[in-house]
């Protein structure tokens, strides 16, 4: 299988979350059966650093990156995610997932892209990591003039 040049791949459109929703943190805490109150009880985060804003679950921060990758390469395309967490995301924050392809390779007959990924709040790095994404399904769009762009969470909200 011939590995395409990096320049023939569309860039990964970033994904913007305009407002991290505290109500979704509560649902997530229930699904995870996570007893840690910083995710659902504003009184537990009443210190100056948090100001009563609950803390988004780490898995949700990583999920924004996963959603960005799936919007780019398709559901079911993610083969590996490795992430390190550097700061909390608080209720009401706006965050942006972004990434770029570092390397293309074949493994087990499957073409993959190794990507650097991150989650940002403004200029603050929240999550950094790497991902491996299957890109076989992207043959149809590889080589087009698709430009890097941004997907907003509001767009997804409209689809719900």
């Amino acid at each position, binding site marked *: 299988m011939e590995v395409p040049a990096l320049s023939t791949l569309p860039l990964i459109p970033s994904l913007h979350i305009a407002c991290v929703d505290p109500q979704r943190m509560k*649902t997530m805490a229930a*699904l995870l*059966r996570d007893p840690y109150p*910083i995710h659902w009880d504003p009184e537990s985060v009443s210190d100056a650093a948090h100001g009563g804003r609950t803390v988004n679950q780490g898995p949700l921060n*990583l*999920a924004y990156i996963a959603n960005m990758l799936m919007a780019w390469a398709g559901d*079911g395309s993610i083969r590996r*995610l*490795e992430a390190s967490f550097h700061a909390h995301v608080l209720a009401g924050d706006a965050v942006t997932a972004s990434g770029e392809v570092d390397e293309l390779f074949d493994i087990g007959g499957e073409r993959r892209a190794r990507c650097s990924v991150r989650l940002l709040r403004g200029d603050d790095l929240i999550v950094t990591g790497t991902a491996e994404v299957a890109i076989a399904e992207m043959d149809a769009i590889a080589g087009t003039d698709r430009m890097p762009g941004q997907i907003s969470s509001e767009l*997804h909200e409209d689809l719900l």
Partner: protein
Amino acid sequence: MRYRLGVPRFAESIPDGHVNAVATQDPVDPDRVGIPSDEEIAALVGYRFPGGLRKVERWENWLLTDCTQRQPMSGKQLHPVVLFHVPIQAASTSIGEIFSLCGGGPAGSVTLLGYEWEYLAVMSEDVVYRGDGGVVAATRFRGSDGRVTHDDIFFVIELSDPEETTVARVTTRWRFLR
């Protein structure tokens, strides 16, 4: 039952296709004081979770995906974020139990360092997965005054499908501030 590995504590009586792998909770006691000894931290390495079974139904996958602020997944595919809690629950443990096991203290004393999630096969709604794993590393850190500052504890859990094919492997790294 097609599963042959160690029987989880509550799965023996679970009929095929009907799984309840949510472990009992031991919430973190916010008043807990005291730091695990060096020996207790070292002894964590090799600890095995009981192991068990877990499936994700449509409602859970939908809600979980909604929490990530995107539209539902296509078909019956599970959202990738399932690799946080499903392995933990499939292994018949819980976040609360792990915090207790590692001597987690009050709110703010446990920090997530990172994950490595490997997706070895597509995971789907309504499939019963088996979880097995345990603590693989525990490292104690001290300040210049010799006082314990934190413990970094890593655990690995694998999920396998009814054909006993490993479909996912997760490594989770947590820091317990002391």
